[in-house]
């Protein structure tokens, strides 16, 4: 069987990619995608562990996380839409009125 470490490693790499994107992308939508990436890397973890432990808790959790991610995405896109309506762009590094 494939050792669980490989799944976790995969998840970690995906998570790191998500992080990298999150930290470097300017576009709000891309950042949202990166968030999805991170959440899904966690899902990989959950499913892998679920399988290795032989209980289904992780899979249930995964389902919930998917639903939550959807809800989150909906909110995120809504906010981005509002911003876009107001500023005609969604480059988040230019939205920095609030600082210091």
């Amino acid at each position, binding site marked *: 069987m494939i050792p669980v470490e490989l799944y976790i490693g995969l998840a970690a790499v995906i*998570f790191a990619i998500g992080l990298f994107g999150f930290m470097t992308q300017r576009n709000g939508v891309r950042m949202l995608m990166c968030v999805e990436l*991170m*959440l899904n890397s*966690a899902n990989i973890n959950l499913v892998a*562990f679920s399988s290795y432990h032989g209980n289904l808790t992780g899979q249930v959790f995964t389902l919930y996380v998917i639903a*939550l991610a959807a*809800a989150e995405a909906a909110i995120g896109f809504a906010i*981005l839409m509002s911003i876009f309506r107001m500023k005609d762009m969604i480059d*988040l590094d230019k939205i920095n009125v609030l600082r210091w």
Partner: protein
Amino acid sequence: MDLMLFAPEITMVVTGLAVLLIGLFLPVESKKVLGYLASLGILIALYFTVASLGTNALAFYDTLSVDALSQFFKIVFLVVTLLFSIAAIKYTEGSKNTEEFYVLAIFATIGMMFVASANDLMVLFVAFELASISTYTLSGFEKNNPQSLEASIKYFLIGSLSAALMLFGITFLYGVTGTTSIPGIAAGAAALAASPIGILAVVLLIAGFGFKIALVPFHMWAPDTYQGSPSLVSSLLAAGSKKMGIVAAFKVFIVALIALKVEWQIAFAVLAVITMTVGNAAALSQTSVKRMLAYSSLAQAGYITMAFVVLTPMALGGGILYALSHGFMKAGAFIVTAAVVYMVLSENKDAQNPDHIDNFRGLGRRMPVTALSMTIFVFALAGIPLTAGYMSKFVLFSSTIQAGFAWLAVIAILNSALSLYYYAKIVKYMYFLPTEGTKVSEPLPYTLALVVAVAGVLAIGFWPEPFIYWAMEAAKVLLAGGM
């Protein structure tokens, strides 16, 4: 299983749905009713919660627990929401979207309440997200105000990131112990303690909770969001959802991960010191009152975090009491800024930065009740005696000394002294600096909310005995499971 155990939650859900549905059919001018309705519902829920203090039960396949801890924090959340909801009667006056405002706040509160009751990480995570997702929208509620939207998107993005981090951490806990139940994890935590993944999991969870608590360095969103959001939402965030992070952290670390005590104590010690220092130092020269309060709220979070380091019943009791006090004080302070913002905007619709400290000039003359309440809140935050803030600091700091962490107490106390500077600055502006403004009639809902908050602050300050008792009971719940 006794459903009455969840009477508060059920009441809240019913209230939320009722507000949503009734709101659809009401004309704009009579939407005020929703505020009364919501406040009534919250009050009933509060009654149920208080009435159920002292019960101890597990429910729903042991995924929820009702005990002193959960009930105490539910009281905190409900009180804050109550203040919020009373004040919001004025804020939403004439708005078409009153029902959204209320329902989101009520849902957020439901999320917080479930976090307080959670006995399973899955419940905890979902409830956490419920509270977050509801407040993301709330914080961007003034959708034509760029600041509000900016606050919202920052809050949302960092919130999502933190959720991901937290979830990542939870997966490791699940991976090692094979369960998401808090007692189950506690049982299997020995394996965690033995492996480096335990540290990672702890830190990821701290990051996740620390986002809500606004611990440095996971606090970056907080000043921006508190400043940009509508003041009332800031009050909910600072006073309510921050406590959700605290109670979640209490449960996860002290109950589930007591085996990794050393690891998270180190982390919390460092974070507490950094947080209170950064919070106070950065607050010193702020000119936006909301931002100042945000930083002050950081500092307060730092004090509460000391409870994790000290970890004696009294310290935890102090931390829990502090959570309640802070709820009153911070909610009150933000409601004051809401009232000031209202005042400024009603004079000049296009005013920039309505919460600028210059707008507090002469507030003592312009809005005497508001100014007096603010004085009490900031003095309470600074820890002047006979206020809730002092009482909580008294218990918390003194227990820190008792446990031998004198250095921590010294840092906290020096910080507390430092904070007096900016608190005093607000008072100075309100009472000593001249203004051209004239006396303004203070909106009744704000005043009512302020009076309730002041009453709470003074009640804890003057008659802390029952509060201390229940805070201690709550602390015992935590330690009974773990130690």
